[in-house]
């Protein structure tokens, strides 16, 4: 039964692993749950009831984990920036070919990478505030846990690019076809997407609240456990999109998404309907 509790907690924390404070919270919580489960069994509760009551004692842990993880991520980003603060700020890399380049933990604030070939390059944990990536090729590039505030990605080639857990405040994506791009666990409320198409993009556990995706095209996009309150998808096209969450909060937010005039395939429509979301005025094809 301890395995079952372990498994349950693993599931809750899966998306947030990697930061010390989160692993600590997980270990503390597990120890508490195991002790509660033992207590309940000792009181004579059967296994199933004890498990149910143990899981119920957790409460809204998602919110707590998010608080803990976003706090430590901001700290990680600051530490990194401080390390190399004088390194390469404002450097002009326009048009260069730097395939597989290693720019990890660098200070690149205000740099210009426009039209550069950055295929497979790594920018992990770097300070890329105000950086220009317009027209750059970022196929297979890794930009995780980076600070990208106010950077621009106009007409950039974004294939399998990984932006997970990065700071994307004020970042502009425009006139791009995003293919298999990852935005897991990112805060996107102030990110701008203009005239983009999304194929295989992963928005799991990201905060998309209030974003405007009117007229956008989504194929095979994951919105699992994302914050979707007030998202506008008027006239958007959705195919094979996944909306999965396990909290009531998620489905409540899903009901506030505006799908007015959107076109969607039967599967996406059925998935939404199955979750009690009945989008009005949509075209099901």
């Amino acid at each position, binding site marked *: 039964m301890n395995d079952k509790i372990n498994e349950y907690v693993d599931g809750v924390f899966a998306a947030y692993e990697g930061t010390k404070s989160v692993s*600590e*919270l997980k*270990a*503390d*919580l597990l*120890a*508490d*749950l*195991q*002790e*509660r489960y033992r*207590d309940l069994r000792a009181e004579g509760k059967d296994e199933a009831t004890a498990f149910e009551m143990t899981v119920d*004692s*957790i*409460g*809204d*842990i998602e*919110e*707590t984990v998010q*608080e*803990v993880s976003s706090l430590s991520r901001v700290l990680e980003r600051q530490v990194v920036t401080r390390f190399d603060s004088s390194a390469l700020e404002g450097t002009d890399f326009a048009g260069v070919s730097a395939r597989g380049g290693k720019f990890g933990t660098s200070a690149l604030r205000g740099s210009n990478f426009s039209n550069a070939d950055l295929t497979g390059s790594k920018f992990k944990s770097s300070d890329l505030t105000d950086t220009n990536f317009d027209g750059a090729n970022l196929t297979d590039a890794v930009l995780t846990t980076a600070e990208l505030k106010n950077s621009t990605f106009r007409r950039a080639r974004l294939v399998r690019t990984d932006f997970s857990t990065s700071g994307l405040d004020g970042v502009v994506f425009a006139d791009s076809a995003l293919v298999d791009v990852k935005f897991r666990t990112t805060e996107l409320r102030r990110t701008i997407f203009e005239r983009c198409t999304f194929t295989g993009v992963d928005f799991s556990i990201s905060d998309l609240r209030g974003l405007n995706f009117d007229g956008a095209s989504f194929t095979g996009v994951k919105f699992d456990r994302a914050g979707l309150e007030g998202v506008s998808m008027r006239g958007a096209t959705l195919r094979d999109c996944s909306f999965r969450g396990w909290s009531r909060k998620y489905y409540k937010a899903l009901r506030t998404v505006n799908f007015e005039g959107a076109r969607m395939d039967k599967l996406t429509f059925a998935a939404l309907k199955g979750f009690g979301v009945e989008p009005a005025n949509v075209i099901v094809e």
Partner: protein
Amino acid sequence: MSSSKVTSDLLRGNTDTMILRLLAEADRYGYEIVKLIAERSQGEYELKEATMYSSVRRLEADGDITWYWGDETQGGRRKYFRITEKGKATYTRNKTNWEYAKRVLDTLL
């Protein structure tokens, strides 16, 4: 727990002070805190693990409590929370504020 949302919000709003009170008596670990709160309220208030850890984290950030590893063998190491001098002052202040609010509310409700 009480079914009234207002009541439970009012209780939850005092979680930090409840925890400080428990730690003013002795150093305690997570499960001990939620268990004692359920016991002392005779099951009227069930503090969730999430709410407790969120509160503990806040108290720690504010310097009201610190923590250290206990040395138990059963179920691995336990994190014990301890109240600081600042935390004791916070507790006294919150408690005084509550006594005051209670007096005022009693004259108004």
